[in-house]
């Protein structure tokens, strides 16, 4: 993932996205949408392609269109209450797999925060119920850029991680089996850290994981990531 993107995403997680800007430009967003078009249609008469159509996506529960076959991961996120508000769309567009484990959206993400804002503004224009969309906030860019790379740069202690991991493997099997509960072995460190912070900020909905993450310090998460990356 692009470094700046990671920083942005982490910052957003820590702020709970409360300060996300929506000052995007619809016309520029239409251009950004070109990279989405091979899989997603939008506008009058749009139908499902490889991905679902994106009319009325704002405020919709994730994975909830009954006539589209979603990944288990996306359905699970929706079942747990995740909605496509601007914050979640921004995170998903930036790095789909970081927000939704097991998503079918094989897309590297839109790295530029400006492009994402423009794209979201464009998508918003095709949703009739903007009440679910937070208004833009002028303080959106006032986050501290120094905090985020520091968290990502923490060097995890794998031995401590192994001890902490004993708590994870009560549910997540160490051999990578994933019935009912996803596998977490072999994840890249960055992705692991991003995901755990997403639970910590309650951006990801599962209450068990929110609780686990809430009790993990940044160093704990780094240690776990360092340990699980080495597991096969």
């Amino acid at each position, binding site marked *: 993932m692009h470094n700046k993107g990671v920083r942005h995403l982490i910052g957003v997680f820590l702020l709970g996205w409360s300060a996300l800007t929506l000052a995007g430009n619809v016309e520029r967003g239409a251009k950004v949408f070109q990279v989405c078009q091979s899989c997603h249609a939008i506008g009058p008469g749009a139908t499902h392609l490889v991905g679902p159509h994106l009319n009325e996506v704002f405020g919709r529960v994730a994975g909830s269109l009954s006539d589209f076959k979603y990944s288990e991961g996306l*359905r*699970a996120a929706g*079942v*747990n209450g995740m909605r496509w508000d601007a914050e979640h769309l921004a995170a998903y567009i930036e790095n789909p797999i970081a927000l939704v484990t097991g998503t079918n959206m094989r897309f590297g993400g839109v790295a530029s925060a400006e492009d994402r804002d423009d794209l979201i503004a464009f998508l918003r224009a095709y949703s009739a119920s903007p009440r679910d969309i937070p208004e833009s906030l002028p303080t959106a860019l006032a986050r501290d850029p120094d905090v985020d790379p520091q968290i990502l740069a923490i060097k995890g202690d794998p*031995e*401590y991680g*192994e*001890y*902490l991991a*004993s*708590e994870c*493997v*009560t*549910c*997540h*099997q*160490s*051999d990578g*089996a*994933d*019935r*009912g*509960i996803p596998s977490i072995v072999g994840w890249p460190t960055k992705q692991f850290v991003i995901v755990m912070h997403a639970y910590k900020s309650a951006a990801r909905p599962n*209450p*068990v994981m*929110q*609780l*686990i993450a*809430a*009790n993990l310090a940044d160093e704990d998460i780094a240690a776990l990531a360092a340990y699980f990356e080495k597991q096969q």
Partner: protein
Amino acid sequence: MDRRSFLRGTVAGAALASAAPSVIGSAKPRVVVIGGGAGGATAARYIAKDSQGAVDVVLIEPTRTYYTCFFSNLYIGGYRDFASIGHTYGKLASEYGVTVVHDWATGIDRDAKTVALASGTTIGYDRVIVAPGIDFKYETTPGYSAAASGKMPHAWKGGSQTQLLKAQLEAMRPGGTFVMLAPPNPYRCPPGPYERISMAAHLLTEKNPTAKIIVLDPKEKFSKQGLFQEAWTKYYGDMVEWLPASMYGSIKAINADTMTIETELDTFKADVANIIPGQRAGHIASSAGLTNDSGFCPIVPDTMQSQMDPNVFVLGDSSIAGDMPKSGFSANSQAKVAAMVVRAELTGSRAFPPKFSNTCWSLVATNDGVKVGARYEATPEKIASTGGFISKTGESAELRKQTYEESIGWYNGITADMFG
């Protein structure tokens, strides 16, 4: 303990035992684990695995196949077959080098640091981990005894009692009455009695739809009450009637011959009766002087060490673990903390801060799971809750199905974590 029989045992058990294993400098330190459930099996596996042969781990467990209490209600409901909740200790021995001894631990001599077995053997230890689960306080159920459990099962320890209760429910006369006497606090698995009622109601709705279920409960409220009561009404109509003690008075007499439960205010005639007495720590814990007046074992919150003896650790249902419920998940969580401390003490490995957590899933009907969970931290006084969550009434069918699927994932995870 009988001193003479203990000494006799020491001689007879010379093959396995060395009375003071660490006296000789070259001897490996030894940990004896009493009880092969969620606490004991996990502790044995983690110490053996992480010490990589530096610690001699001996696990004492009477049964060769361990049937989990968790998910035993799903067997009653017909969602699991019995074999699927049975586990053996082969991998602990072959893959992790744990010495598994299928025998009863009959006593602990804390001065000599030895554990006596029913076979007559004694085994010396540097640390002993006591995880015997629960025994019953029959004084809470007048007239009921171990002998009566052949007719009125408690089914509160995994295995044949669970099979007996399910067989009785399946054979119950049409329109018969199933009476459960729920246990008073504190007891193993707080949502367990009510998950069992849900599973019995599911079974009877299919096989015996005019049957009745009465729950006599010494408590005025219970775990996940709103969720269970919502499900009973939704799925089982008026089959289930829950009565707190204020509705029936205290228990006067339980009679297994007449299948009656006489209370202050009423007499209940049962076709099938499930009597779950009040509970205390497994007998060996009290005989070793590890319990207090509550019948359970006080522990040091950040290590799970007994407050009576720093060479003894107590895990799971027999411990007083503060705000943590008596559950397999809790015992497994506590075991990892104890394993880390024991290893650090015996081998000088790194010590880390304790982490405790618990989640309890319950199945209330087909594809309808609910959960409750919390996180804990060790304070000087107790293991204290730092926050939690619970499923909500009125959740979508899809979320409930996902919660059930999650519970299956957890079952697979924790049993792999216990048995390898």
